[in-house]
């Protein structure tokens, strides 16, 4: 039972982290950026390359990894998405372009690193600490601590600082904030950079705990997106509730059936919400046709 709670809270902290990344990305540019999934994988694989390949210390490798993956995410915005936004293409066009980008990055990773499972852990099997009847490893404790502090830091930035207020302003109404002299283009870059940073941190935390393969980012990204959608894509409290609901359901499914059904359960919950609670737990209206 304790073990279940530990497992839920670890997945919960990762999902929340990815969820904020998705939220930052979605609220500023209004489309689901599937290439964020590749940012998660990329950060982990860059860290792997710097740490194992170039034999840099783990901490420096992690920083370099996050830096590189964030640079690629910002590069994609500058080259692809900014152009598409200026031409005012519909959101699904950007989504499909991001799908193309995801395919390119994911296959580049398997081209350079191969498809076999890689790991950042130094020892083969890490023996966990026994706390209140549950095993928890050092990297899992790190996951909890790091994601909690990152979450609080991002919340503080978005709610209190001028930068955060500006980002919230452009996500509410970009045209109006343009009129008030807020430079939305550079702010979107900042928001995307923050989102990529968060996704990268999440990716590295996952890879410290479990093995990674070129496609591992996709499932965690979908978890984050679903948490964001069922929370109503509106506020952070909703996001926490959505993420908690989702991960609890996933782990209950894993406990009573098997871990392999976790992805299917996540989408099942999404569909249930789309039918019965289309406004999400947070209360904001989902985008759909009203007739």
């Amino acid at each position, binding site marked *: 039972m304790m073990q279940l709670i530990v497992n839920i809270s670890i997945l919960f902290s990762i999902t929340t982290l990815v969820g904020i990344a998705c939220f930052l990305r979605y609220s500023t540019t209004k489309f689901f950026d599937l290439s964020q999934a590749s940012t998660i994988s990329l950060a982990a694989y860059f860290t792997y390359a710097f740490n194992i390949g170039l034999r840099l210390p783990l901490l420096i490798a992690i920083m370099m990894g996050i830096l590189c993956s964030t640079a690629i995410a910002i590069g994609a915005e500058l080259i692809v998405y900014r*152009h*598409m936004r200026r031409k005012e293409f519909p959101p*699904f066009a950007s989504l499909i372009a991001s799908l193309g980008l995801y395919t390119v990055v994911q*296959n580049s990773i398997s081209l350079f690193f191969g498809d076999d499972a890689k790991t950042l852990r130094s020892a083969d099997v890490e023996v966990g600490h026994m706390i209140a009847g549950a095993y928890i490893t050092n990297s899992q404790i790190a996951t909890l601590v790091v994601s909690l502090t990152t979450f609080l830091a991002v919340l503080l930035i978005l709610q209190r600082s001028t930068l955060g207020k500006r980002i919230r302003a452009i996500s509410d109404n970009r045209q109006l904030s343009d009129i008030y002299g807020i430079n939305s283009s550079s702010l979107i870059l900042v928001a995307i950079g923050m989102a990529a940073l968060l996704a990268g941190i999440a990716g590295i935390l996952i890879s410290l705990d479990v093995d990674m393969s070129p496609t591992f980012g996709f499932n965690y990204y979908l978890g984050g997106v679903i948490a964001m959608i069922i929370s109503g894509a509106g506020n952070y409290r909703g996001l926490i509730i959505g993420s908690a609901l989702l991960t609890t359901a996933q782990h209950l499914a894993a406990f009573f059936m098997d871990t392999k059904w976790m992805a299917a359960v996540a989408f099942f919950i999404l*569909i249930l919400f789309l039918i019965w609670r289309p406004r999400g737990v947070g209360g904001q209206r989902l985008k*759909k046709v009203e007739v």
Partner: protein
Amino acid sequence: MDYFLHVAVLICFYTLLAQSLDLVAGKTGMVSLAHAGFYGIGAYTTALLTVLFGTSFWFSLPLSVIVAGVFASVVVAFAWRTVDDYFIMCTLGAQIIIYSLMNNWIKFTQGPIGISGIAKLKFPFWMPKSSLSFVLISIALVLLIWTLLRNLSRSGFGKTLMAISEDEVYAQSIGKSVYSSKVVAFTLSAMIAAIHGALFARYMGLVDPSSFTINDSIFILSIVIIGGMGNLMGSFLASVFMITVPELLRFLGLPQNLAANMRQIVFGAILIGVMMRGGKGITEFFRSNSRALR
């Protein structure tokens, strides 16, 4: 020779898949990422019926089509309300649930190993032994479906679908039923995909979940997009292009696994390029360029 015939069969298969997806993605504006799942349902139904009960092709084909249609109508009954990117996420969900059923419901589908030993296609009077006759069957089927889809898009129903893709609220306000049109279009498209699935199972002799992943859905969607949305000829040209180019890459002497990755990278890049030009496919590209030359 057999190799070229195999490529020809693949081109026919993907033309069929792309044209059926075009009915929803191109005509109605419902971009779906669940198409590989639906054709997988068709393939699995035929495979299971053939292996477990030894049914003939002509009995399992309609059943496969019906099963895929039922699945598709359930999906669209839930998802029809959502538009644009939310609809894509819904169909992505459907794709992942279908794949996870194929991969994880081991008692029924035998999981990742797949179902093998499916009897090859048989006809009452004629036994297609060679690959050539299978190519002829596929071409006949493609022509049949092509004509059907072309007539459908010219009919009143096709016009309604185009109206929905242009302005859903307006289509509803002039008395067109948005709900039923969307459900019918989506179900029909999945059913056509299932025909292909049934043929695929009988052609390959085995089915396993790796043929029906999200990557395959993306591949089919990129054929439609590269060919140009709502353009049946474009879907055909794009499938010729997308199937033959990687085969050419193979002749360059790249190792098998490298070639597969390179292929995906090239397609991803093409997809980004096409979307950056506003979703104009190859046919439109050539058309505008030839106009510029004149």
